[in-house]
């Protein structure tokens, strides 16, 4: 059983939400800026 009385396979949905935010932040940090006219 995972946190908050949730089975792990259901709690993993919350982990995916958190991981999505993390992925977007990492992507933003390593974002390659476009050098063309903006």
């Amino acid at each position: 059983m995972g946190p908050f009385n949730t089975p792990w396979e259901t709690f993993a949905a919350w982990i995916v939400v958190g991981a999505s935010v993390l992925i977007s932040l990492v992507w933003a940090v390593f974002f390659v800026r476009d050098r063309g006219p903006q």
Partner: protein
Amino acid sequence: MSARAIHILVLAAYMTVLVAIGVAATRRTRTADEFHLGGRGIGAWVTALSYVAAYFSSVVIIGGGGFAYRYGMATLWIGAANVLIGGTLIWIVLGRRVRLFTERLSTMTVPGFLAERFRAPEARVLGSIVIGLFLIIYNVSILKGMGNAFEVLLGMPYIVGVLVSGVVILLYVSLGGYLAVVWTGFFQAWVMGAGLILLTVAALRAVGGLSAANLALAQASPGLVETPGAWGWAGLVSYALITSFGVWGMPQMVARFYSIKSVNALRIGTVLATVGCSMAVLPYLDGAIARVLVPGLSNPDQAIPALTRAVLSPWGSAIFLAGVMAAGMSTFSAVLIITSSAIVRDLVQDGLGRRLDERTSIRASRFASVVVGLVSVAIAIKPPALVLVLMGFSWAVIASTCLWPIVFGIYWKRATRWGVLASMGGGLAASLVWMVIGSPFGLHGFVAGIVVSLVSLVVVSLLTPRLPDDHVARVWGERRG
């Protein structure tokens, strides 16, 4: 002040802001490019939050909560898939290339991009017919959702909800075009977020926290906290896929990447869209909590309204109602402007070769958006089928037709004209046939549609002549010689 008076006051204030934004946007809409895409000058915040607002309709809030009431916490996976695939990955995978490619090809619409990218005028006609037709069906399902929300949350007749929301949307879309759509979407995303957070906090407090909610659900039936639970893998996965991966083929979502002011704005936009899309899990959480707090409802779609009545004050429920309306109206307006673009730009101007000057083009676009809106309202007054079935149906058909051509159009140089036409035709036919024969194996028609569309595109492209090298190089922005 009575609860009803508070609801009407908050809704009136909310709709006044929408019309004011529409009027303000009119002054900045002088060309057809500005009417359809806001002149490709929309910033990261407005693009990202209007994307979130266009993504989630009131059908998702009311219907999603209904699913969770019926199937429990496993439905959180639908929200999680929406955030990861429909919020984060789409921005990373499609954003930059769609922005660059459509600018190089000077296209403003999805059918226009497919026609120019693959030198396939037939793709423009097929794409615009499918988008025009099935987005109207989607419009009807959104309006129906808003009519139902009015009925159950406000106690007012269904037809009043359809007419009030329909007329206000028609007003600001026909006046301010795309700018009005994205700026009202930006405002509406905040209203949606406020309403959903308010309901979730109140529901968690009333049930005694997430642990207590899970414990109570497990005692009622262990399947309500397990994954996949009573729904089963086929139903859960295919529904999660259509509502998250399906977005990749929806023109009203992809258009946000056309109109963002620069590639660099995608950097902050991706984070904002992901955080905004995180609200997708809340209707499912609320629906599951409703199963504990208001058990025994015969119609699961009553779960969220019943929960609202149980845990929110009149002011709180008024804000939540505004949030539900915001979800529906922002999606409807986003769809309306895209349908108008498909008809005026792709069918009339480019498909039939009718040249229109700027003023006539804007007038025609305004007229088309009013006509499409009125047709949607007229159908929604006496709607043909269940809300979610209708929504899933139209999404599946459009996504099955457009998704792979868009993705391969920006990633695979070898994709050919005949490959993309086979993909569009195959995806369209497969998704329709699959649904007509009753969705065998519990799989959604979207799954059949994208599989056939993918195989058709790859196989037919490999069997047919490549596009000329100089054309591909121009599309990819490569210097030749």
